[in-house]
């Protein structure tokens, strides 16, 4: 079984991104599925950041530590991650940094410096790179020093030119050495470099030379390492994309025609990627049928989130498929407009990329803290669809579905995704994003022109602005849209809103709203939502291997809440454990609100790092052993 894990660490701006991408590409070219993730600080330059890569024959479901190879491009990376390498693994580091002391690394966080001082103090030494490597060595890890400066000189000599790039030579050397130790032949690294820099041919050659030199250096020290066999997907083309990118792709595929946004991490990359492709080429069928070559999406950066959502609502009311995307702080600003969108029955999609709060919090880190906020957003009674995706591909398909639901039910749809999905990337096969089965069509009801007609199913005829005279207002209104405070008219509208929610509940099938995995007779039932899904599925396999049978209830829509299934699954279970990345156990809170069932145990992760599968395994076992109510897991650096 191939299960390789590589961590590439270095300063923000120092080539971590391209090293990570090249690593992913090399493994894909070798025929493997990959999962990669960027972890970085809220900083533009110089602070520690890293890429975590996992490689398997089938798509990896979770990140995990320890890794097999740590590529530490600078001293801070060694001192941050030296304990995260498995026995038998390698640390590739710059031998020029051996004497660097933690205390002299300006960007390093104070609490980490203190922890390191304490740790090394107990050993009677000081936190330096070489001491850290000693500790790793004692645990069976092999440090591999690369004399970076000397190697840079040799690259310049070999290419007979000054270096084209510093960061992008250092990173490639570290990476190529790391990949060699992981069993990847140089030729794949070269191919990946070419694929990565096809638009910058000038840096291909020096990079290839750098990779060769680093590998030469390492192979002289370490001969006869086992080589990685070719993977099952060798020769097949795979795409590697982040959650941000997949959601943007789905918006384009799903017929979105207007997207507004105000920049905010971790959502801006979605809008920017969509903007890059806003004027796209039609496929042959569409070209022929429509007589057009290209079609456009208006993607607009607004002055703030108030504008972003109101603009999307205006566009939707005029007939566009419209969306906006944001994160917690921006969503807070959108609250008033969400209530408006519910009242005027605007079909809009709000993609909410959660990050770790409260307030500005740790803006580039993982959190699942906006569930209650999303569900209860907007003043007044404001039911709206809230759907949470469990993984990258769910995020893709849910985007397409959400666009359709918004129209069919004339309602805002809040799509919950998070920082981990946003900036982690997976390998994807063509068929997985090929829109078959799910028709993309305008879903607007057109049986009359009374915009707010009181109907049996609570859905009124769709009449876009510009098609007839009318009024749309956030004030309570009569069927023709005019403002009213009449008590009877008010009741009629409130009841129409209730019936609409019942319709939504009836028409979005239960299978869409909740998914259940695992053995029917399992003693332990895990309840969770969002991006913890795959780590949970991965943990379930491990637990199975240890004789602990588990079942997993993944809640996907919180409104309408899948009461029947959740109630049934939980009430029959011996031990129910919630898994969430928030303080309150927000989904568990909703389970109780909607079903009356109290989830007694929680595994929580709060430190802003994505949850690992082994942490869930640990949490479940701990709860079974001790009966503790809450286990907080704390992995990641």
């Amino acid at each position, binding site marked *: 079984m191939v299960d390789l894990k590589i961590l590439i660490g270095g300063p923000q701006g*120092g080539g971590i991104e391209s090293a990570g991408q090249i690593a992913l590409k090399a493994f894909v070219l070798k025929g493997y599925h990959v999962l990669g993730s960027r972890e970085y600080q809220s900083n533009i330059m110089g602070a520690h*950041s890293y890429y975590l890569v996992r490689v398997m024959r089938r798509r990896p479901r979770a990140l995990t530590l320890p890794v097999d190879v740590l590529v530490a491009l600078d001293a801070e990376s060694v001192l941050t991650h030296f304990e995260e390498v498995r026995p038998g693994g390698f640390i590739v580091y710059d031998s020029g940094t051996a004497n660097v002391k933690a205390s002299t690394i300006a960007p390093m966080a104070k609490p980490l410096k203190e922890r390191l001082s304490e740790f090394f103090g107990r050993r009677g030494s000081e936190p330096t790179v070489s001491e850290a490597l000693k500790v790793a060595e004692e645990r069976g890890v092999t440090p591999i020093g690369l004399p970076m400066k000397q190697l840079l000189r040799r690259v310049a000599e070999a290419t007979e030119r000054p270096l*084209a790039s510093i960061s992008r030579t250092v990173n490639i050397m570290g990476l190529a050495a790391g990949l060699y130790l992981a069993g990847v032949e140089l030729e794949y690294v070269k191919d990946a470099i070419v694929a990565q820099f096809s638009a910058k041919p000038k840096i291909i050659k020096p990079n290839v030379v750098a990779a060769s030199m680093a590998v030469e250096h390492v192979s002289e020290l370490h001969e006869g390492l086992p080589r990685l066999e070719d993977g099952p997907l060798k020769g097949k083309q795979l795409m590697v994309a982040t959650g941000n990118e997949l959601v943007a792709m789905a918006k384009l595929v799903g017929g979105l025609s207007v997207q507004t946004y105000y920049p905010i991490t971790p959502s801006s990359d979605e809008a920017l990627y969509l903007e890059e492709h806003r004027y796209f080429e039609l496929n042959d069928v569409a070209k022929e049928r429509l007589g057009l070559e290209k079609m456009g999406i208006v993607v607009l950066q607004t002055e703030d989130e108030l504008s972003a959502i109101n603009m999307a609502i205006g566009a939707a009311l005029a007939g566009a498929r419209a969306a906006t995307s944001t994160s917690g702080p921006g969503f807070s600003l959108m609250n008033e407009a969400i209530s408006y969108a519910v009242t005027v029955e605007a079909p809009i999609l709000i993609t909410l990329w959660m990050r770790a709060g409260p307030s500005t919090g740790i803006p580039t880190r993982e959190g699942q803290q906006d569930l209650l906020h999303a569900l209860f957003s907007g003043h007044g009674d404001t039911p709206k669809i809230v759907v949470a995706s469990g993984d990258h591909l769910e995020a893709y398909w849910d985007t397409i579905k959400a666009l359709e639901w918004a129209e069919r039910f004339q309602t805002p749809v809040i799509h919950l995704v998070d920082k981990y999905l946003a*900036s982690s990337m997976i390998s994807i096969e063509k068929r997985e994003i090929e829109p078959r089965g799910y028709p993309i069509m305008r879903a607007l009801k057109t049986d009359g022109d009374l915009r707010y007609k009181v109907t049996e199913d609570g859905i009124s005829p769709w009449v876009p602005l510009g098609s007839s005279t009318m009024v749309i207002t956030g004030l309570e209104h009569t069927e023709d849209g005019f403002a009213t405070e009449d008590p009877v008219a008010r009741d009629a509208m409130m009841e129409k809103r209730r019936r609409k929610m019942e319709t939504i509940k009836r028409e979005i099938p239960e299978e869409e709203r909740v998914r259940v995995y695992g053995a029917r007779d399992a003693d332990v039932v895990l309840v969770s939502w969002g991006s913890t899904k795959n780590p949970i599925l991965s943990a379930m396999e491990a637990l199975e291997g240890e004789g602990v049978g588990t079942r997993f209830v993944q809640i996907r829509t919180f409104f309408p809440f899948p009461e029947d299934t959740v109630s049934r699954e939980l009430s029959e279970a011996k031990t129910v454990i919630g898994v969430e990345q928030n303080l309150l156990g927000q989904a568990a809170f909703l389970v109780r609100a909607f079903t009356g069932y109290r989830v007694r145990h929680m595994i929580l992760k709060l430190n802003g790092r994505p949850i690992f599968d082994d942490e869930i395994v640990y949490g479940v076992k701990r709860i079974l052993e001790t009966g503790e109510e809450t286990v907080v897991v704390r992995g990641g650096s």
Partner: protein
Amino acid sequence: MVLNVLQKRGPRGLVAVCMNCRYWRPSPHYPYAGYCILHGKVTLEDDSCSMHSPLRLKRNQFYWCSSCKTRVSSEEAGAHASQGHKLYLGAYVEKDVREEIYDAF
């Protein structure tokens, strides 16, 4: 205040290498390599050439302290230099650095 920014010393004092030269800008990430603004190329800290011109500390000037990874004014620079920090007239930010940086707020 005029004083040498002593960085690499040989038996006869300051060595005429890039890191002691006023034309040289280290990478903020990997400061053993940098950019020579005179020749317009990347060199290593211990490279040298005939155009070497020693770096001195002057008034009304900003310096890049590569040890602290931050910019300091001449008023503070002396204190950094005396602690053995490496000071330069600037740092070299590569032109594609944007592609290596993530959105941060």
